[in-house]
Every structure is written in C-alpha cells, then in structure tokens.
C-alpha cells in the first residue's frame, strides 16, 4: 500500500488509517460512507454558519447594534462543535480509502487552506476584543473578510477533492 520507496512516518500513519476496523467497514459500506458524508455536511452547516455570522458581524453586515466581540464569543462554541464534527467525520472519510486522498492533488491544498482558515478565524478573537481602537477595528474587518474567502476556498476545494 506504500507508494514511495522510503515512506515517511506521516505517510505510514496516514495510509494505515485504511487498515483500521472503521476504515475497512466504511470502505465496504456505501450507506455508512454516505452517512459520514452527511455528517460532514451537517458539520459544515454549523461551522460555516457560525464562522460566517461571526465574520459578517465584524464587517457590520449583521447584528449591527451588537458588540462584535460578544457575538464572536457567543458563537465560538458552535464553531468549535462544527469544526470537531468536520474533522472527525473527515478523518473517517479518509480512512475509507487513504491512498485515494494521498494521491489526490487537491487534498494537500485543502488541508493547507483549512489551516489558514482556522488561523484567520482564531486570530480574530483577541483583535476584535479591542473594538474601541480604530486600528483594531480595521484589522478585524480585514481578517473577517479574509476568513470568509478562505472558508469558501476550503469548501470549494473540498467539493472538488471528491470529484477528481
């Protein structure tokens, strides 16, 4: 199952997901695989919804009268739950056929975009707290706009990972 002559520890670990019980089970059951995909989409609704509303609040598009830091804090648990659901279901989807994802040219870019999105989103919280400082307001808005774009990129690449 290894594809390079000297596989890295990470490659070994990644590909061995396919040998786990759950990996073998999902590889053999279309209905279960589709169920995990559905969970991945429901996680997207929570994560994407919470991230988008947080970012739109910072950009003063929704909840204009509210303190953005409070909205961001209030939606943070939802964002974390959504992200957790997506990561767990995502790892499960990979375990059904790790080699396919290892060889997929879009899978690496997706993980990289995801990393950027998470960093941008989490960077927002300490900065938006200083909402009374104009410099912080401007920076918050730039990060929020970037965050929306990067999350969209993650979702778009994610859809195409399954298509190519």
């Amino acid at each position, binding site marked *: 199952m290894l594809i390079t002559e000297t596989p890295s520890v990470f490659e070994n670990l990644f590909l061995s997901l396919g040998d786990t019980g759950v990996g073998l089970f999902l590889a053999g059951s279309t209905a279960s695989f589709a169920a995990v995909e559905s969970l991945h*989409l429901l996680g997207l*609704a929570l994560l994407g919804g919470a991230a988008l*509303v947080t970012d739109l609040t910072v950009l003063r598009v*929704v909840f204009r009268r*509210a303190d953005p830091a409070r909205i961001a804090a209030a939606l943070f648990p939802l964002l974390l739950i959504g992200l957790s659901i997506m990561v767990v279901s995502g790892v499960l989807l990979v375990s059904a056929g790790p080699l396919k994802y290892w060889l997929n040219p879009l899978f690496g870019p997706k993980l990289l975009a995801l990393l950027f999105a998470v960093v941008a989103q989490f960077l927002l919280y300490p900065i938006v707290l200083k909402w009374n400082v104009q410099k912080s307001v401007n920076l918050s808005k730039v990060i929020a706009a970037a965050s929306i774009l990067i999350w969209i990129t993650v*979702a778009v690449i994610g859809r*195409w990972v399954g298509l190519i």
Partner: protein
Amino acid sequence: MIQAGEAIPPFISVIYNSPLATHVRESEITFPLLQTFHVLGILLMVGSIAIVDLRILGVVLKERTAAEVGKSLLPVTWVGFIVMFLSGGSLFAAQSGKIYDNIFLQVKLGLLLFAALNVVIFHATTYRSIASWPVEGAPRSAKAAAVLSLVVWAAVVVTGRYIAYY
C-alpha cells in the same frame, strides 16, 4: 441513459430535455460547479436557520433577543435559499429523467414541503408574538417549531446526500 420506451412522466421529460438541463448534463464543468454552489448554500441557509433555532431554544446568543437574531439573519437565510433553489433546481433538471423516482429525492422533496409548512405555520402563529417573548425563554410552541426545524433541515441534508448513491 434513458431507454426508449421507458415511461417517464411527460412533465419530467420536458424538464429533462430543456436546454438548461441538457447543457448542465453535457457540460464537464457546470454540473460540479452547481454542486459546489449547492454545498456553499448549505452553510448560508441551514447554518443561519440553525443559529436562529438554537437561539429560540436558548442555546446560543442569549444576550440578544430571539427577535433580533431572527431579523438579523433572515437576509442570510434568503440568500442561501436562492442559491440552494437555483443550484438544486438546475441539478435536478439535469438528472430528472434518471432520478425522478429516486426514493431519497422523493423523501427530500416531502421534507422540504414539510419544512416550508413549518415556517409558514410558525410565522402565522407563534412568531407574531416574538417581540413580547419573555427574556427567560421562548414559548413552548416556538421551541417545538425550532426543534422540528433543526431535525427536518438535517434530514433534508442527509437525504440529499443519499440521492447520489441510489
């Protein structure tokens, strides 16, 4: 491929053979592009609906009133709905001749009808008094509608995903 002589309902046949459906079906890029929009629409529409439902249930954003959360996020839900309706409608048209009797599609359409009915009834009844809901919590009927909404929209996403496999 649709076999000659297969009994497709005439209106499905009209949709399936329309220029739009034919283009989507035959283009390498349009179909996956529409699927991508359909996925992004989920987070706009279902994401915003879930936040409003969870507010009614008193789970998130308790500092803001349910009325404000609902009003503030309604445009996001509408944008999501338009994206979902246009992308979903085109995806269905392109495949309609093959999937019109797909059981998951039929259940999904039934659930969508049910979700729409839930919205209409909720807005015509409980929602009218939203401005006067006590800060401690929404009335029981509103909470019931919110739970129903969460369950039905989740089921719409799940059945939607299964259409492709059966």
